[in-house]
């Protein structure tokens, strides 16, 4: 479960003939349990792509499919992790995580069990009764990830989830996400503008062109990761030192650079 498909997707904001085109002919297939990162220059429409899968934004042309069904509205089969966390500040950590399960009418006992499990998974047990404003940014994002995971979604949509975190916290969260993906693999669509993050986390990296955005190139990371055994390293910096990592990073960086130059020139 959880295949995502962009089929010739276009998006025009504003009126159909006078608005501006944000996306044009976006084609991308994401397989079940695959981790795909989209990188691209700012304003290229990568977040719009994610919002379309989430059901927050409509398409102007083409189709977005999840599990071979056209996306029409938001739903808990596609959990979103927002850049600004978007936790409910009036609810405790536990209540925030529990909220979606209550919508699903999960029986109380099962609900408590699921919440306890995910609290443990994200090492949030000691903060269960805290309010979001009492937590650091990294901790808040852990809660947001827990809130998404507990829904048992087919697809996890992450919109620059570590963009608001400081550099050290970000590294910890990246390692954490890799650990999670191993324990409990999901289809993940991950938006970022940090190339290293994309290479470290994703099976494939899709590079978008500048506006109107389209998928310019899709780079396979997984083959290299497997053959070079990146997963054998515990620390992110050890992976980032590998020649194979640097090579991929540079390649993506150059491809993005062309887009930047095209804008500036």
């Amino acid at each position, binding site marked *: 479960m959880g295949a995502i498909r962009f089929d010739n997707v276009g998006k025009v904001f504003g009126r159909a003939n006078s608005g501006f085109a944000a996306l044009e002919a976006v084609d991308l297939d994401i397989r079940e349990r695959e981790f795909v990162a989209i990188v691209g220059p700012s304003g290229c429409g990568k977040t719009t792509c994610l919002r379309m899968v*989430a*059901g*927050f934004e409509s398409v102007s042309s083409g189709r977005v499919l999840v599990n071979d069904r056209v996306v029409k*509205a*938001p*739903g*808990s089969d*596609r*959990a*979103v992790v*927002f850049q*600004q966390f*978007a*936790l*409910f*500040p*009036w*609810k405790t950590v536990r209540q925030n995580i529990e*909220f*979606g399960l*209550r*919508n*699903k009418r999960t029986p109380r006992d099962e609900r408590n069990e699921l919440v306890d499990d995910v609290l443990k998974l994200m090492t949030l047990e000691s903060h269960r009764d805290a*309010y979001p*404003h009492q937590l650091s940014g990294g901790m808040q994002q852990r809660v947001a990830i827990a*809130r998404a995971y507990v*829904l048992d979604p087919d697809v996890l949509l992450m919109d620059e989830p570590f963009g608001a975190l400081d550099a050290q916290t970000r590294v910890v969260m990246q390692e954490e996400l890799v650990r999670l993906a191993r324990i409990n693999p999901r289809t993940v669509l991950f938006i970022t503008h940090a190339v290293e993050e994309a290479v470290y986390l994703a099976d494939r990296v899709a590079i978008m062109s500048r506006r109107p955005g389209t998928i310019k190139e899709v780079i396979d990371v997984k083959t290299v990761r497997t053959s070079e055994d990146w997963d054998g390293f515990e620390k992110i910096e050890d992976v980032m030192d590998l020649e194979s990592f640097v090579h991929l990073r540079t390649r993506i960086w150059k491809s993005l650079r062309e887009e930047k130059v095209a804008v500036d020139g």
Partner: protein
Amino acid sequence: MRNRKAMVGLGAIAGVVLLWFALTRWFGIIPIGRFPTPGEFWDALKQIELRGFAGSRLHAHALHSLRLIVISFLVAVATGIPLGLLMGWNRRAEALINPVFMLIRPIPPLAWIPLAILWLGLGDAAKVMVIWFAAFVPSVINAHAGVRNIDRSMIEAARMMGTPPHRLVMEVIVPAAMPMIFTGLRLSLQASWTTLVAAELVGALVGVGFVLNVAQQDIFPAMILVGMLTVGVLGWFTTYVLGLVERRVLAWSVQGRA
């Protein structure tokens, strides 16, 4: 820390009382008869509470006014907040109601007094109507703004979790708007007192505003001061109670903690 703050507050009040003694008694800077001395004030206070003034004793006047405030305020809040929430959430409702509201809103609440007296007489009903109007407006405006200012991603988060409409309203929209709603409630409460005193000045048979009115006709400055300070104390008390409620309801927020 809180104790210390209370001590400073009491000290400041004591300071004002000392200054009052100094100006009216010790140095005679304020001429006799212009402003009551603390002694005259005390005598007036004893007179109204022990023997009555303007038809009742002080606590009867005060309780009557307080009761009117509580009733009118609750009615205003119970009608104003839902209307504001509705306007904030539903574009169609906003388009329909807002123009009418914008037109009625600038009318000072006191301008309703003649009509209220004409319709409902000099009794309590007319006052409830006028205070209701005064307290209604800030409740609506702030509940409206509270909903309009909700972080969009908060709503989206709720939608991606498959939240049904009634839970979206009760567990997301209302709490998210709550800090602004309380700002509105504080303004509403202040407006209620202002309007009550004015309404009782114009026409009443009991109440603190009526005390002020009679004291003025009797040229009795000490009693005027008694009436004014009674309003001050009652106003402080109701604000204090509202603050307690707010601290409980908004315990989760950064402001609520302070």
